[in-house]
């Protein structure tokens, strides 16, 4: 009988929503599966699992990425923010408020990825118009087709920030 090769688990540390986690993982575990299956942070959704739908979007060191295409071992040492980490001190994130206000969802499955993606968009500072909102949110699919309201919600949060920044300059 052939001996099954032994692949050692690898020790990594990740700061997830402000909490440090020391973990041992097999190298083929994606960040998405680690979040959902090991840490039970099921807010981050698995849609296509192929980087095409954006439902798994999280912030890694402040930047939005598809967690389904990130091997957890390769993100050793990173700071991860998921949808569970956006609210602060019991207060919803402004994007969460805007999504509720604009009814920017139907089934809600893409919503955590949409909101994390929009949080990344705000931090990037490259988006200034409706056309750019649509383009820069294009990595997040909504099969219910709530795009108009999603773009409205992002616009609600983005535009006052741009105006405030311009007023300060």
């Amino acid at each position: 009988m052939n001996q099954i090769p032994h692949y050692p688990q690898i020790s990594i540390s990740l700061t997830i929503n402000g909490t440090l986690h020391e973990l041992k993982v097999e190298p083929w575990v994606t960040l998405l599966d680690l979040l959902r299956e090991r840490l039970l942070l099921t807010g981050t959704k698995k849609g296509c699992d192929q980087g095409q739908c954006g439902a798994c979007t999280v912030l890694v060191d402040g930047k939005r990425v598809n967690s389904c295409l990130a091997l957890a071992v390769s993100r050793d040492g990173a700071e991860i923010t998921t949808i569970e980490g956006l609210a602060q001190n019991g207060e919803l994130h402004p994007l969460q408020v805007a999504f509720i206000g604009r009814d920017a969802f139907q089934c809600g499955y893409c919503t955590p990825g949409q909101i994390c993606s929009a949080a990344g968009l705000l931090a990037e500072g490259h988006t200034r118009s409706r056309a750019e909102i649509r383009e820069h949110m294009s990595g997040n699919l909504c099969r219910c087709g709530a795009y108009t309201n999603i773009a409205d919600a992002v616009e609600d949060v983005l535009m006052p920030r741009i105006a405030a920044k311009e007023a300060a300059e």
Partner: protein
Amino acid sequence: MNRFEYIRPATVADAIAALNEPAARALAGGTNLVDLMKYDVAQPSRLVDINRLPLKSIEITSGGALRIGALVTNTDLAWHQDVREKWPILSSAILAGASPQLRNAATAGGNLMQRTRCYYFYDPSTACNKRQPGSGCSAIGGVNRIHAILGASDSCIAVHPSDMCVAMVALDASVEVEGPEGKRSIPMSGFHRLPGGEPERDNTLKVGELITSIIIPEPHFGAHHTYLKIRDRLSYAFALISVAAALRVDEGVIQDARIALGGVAHKPWRDFDAEKSLKGERVGTQGFTQVADFILRDAKGQGDNDFKIELARRAIVRALEQAAAGTPQDQADKSIH
């Protein structure tokens, strides 16, 4: 996904040593490799995680060229102030591709190494000479709407999917690599290859070689450039046809022309004879139509993709008109002027 050994080297030398076996693969952003591993299209015996290597800087060399570390993300490259000002066609091409999430993870070196999105290549239940040499090509005589119109072979009609590489080819980039036999520089136009009888080889890298950086001389096209990408939906889709076009114009006369096409062949397509034929010509649609016809003189459809020949012709003309007018295609407002 298959089981594999995972190594995270701290130096380029250690990475090259770890990569020196045929089934070892370098892992950077993982946006294509991890995807291919999930489909069992890629089954590496060893992943060499190169993300800790010091290849993340963007520099301007003493000669004014742009040196891009292999691990610079697509996002950092596209939005870099110097790149936006002096290499705008590169920035534009990158922003025409993928999504912000993918661009945040994907790297410059990884973009060069990404593989075709031919549906048969991605489906291990079908024959594919690129995935399994000698098994046949399911796309020839199959569904081939997205496939090659130039440079294809009887073995493979896949296209290279990159936008970034099309701009790099147009800008005379070169790829710096390091391997067991030392360092060498590969002109970008010779980095990717046509399929011939060996479609399993996307490029001219040798086993154990690692891309360390990409160098692009400073172009002198001013606003006379564009990256025009035509696809089935407005955002987040691979090119059916894309054109990187740049002109140096002096009083209405073309001094230098660059035309590179994406979505048409197994490599970004550049025709040096076509570019030469524009030199000394006055800018104008008639000359642009002639050069488009010349570039496509050997174009061949596969059935479903026959429309791409006429689409390519019109896209080349429109891109040259945009470049001549100094009105580059906007990648957020998709209307084509």
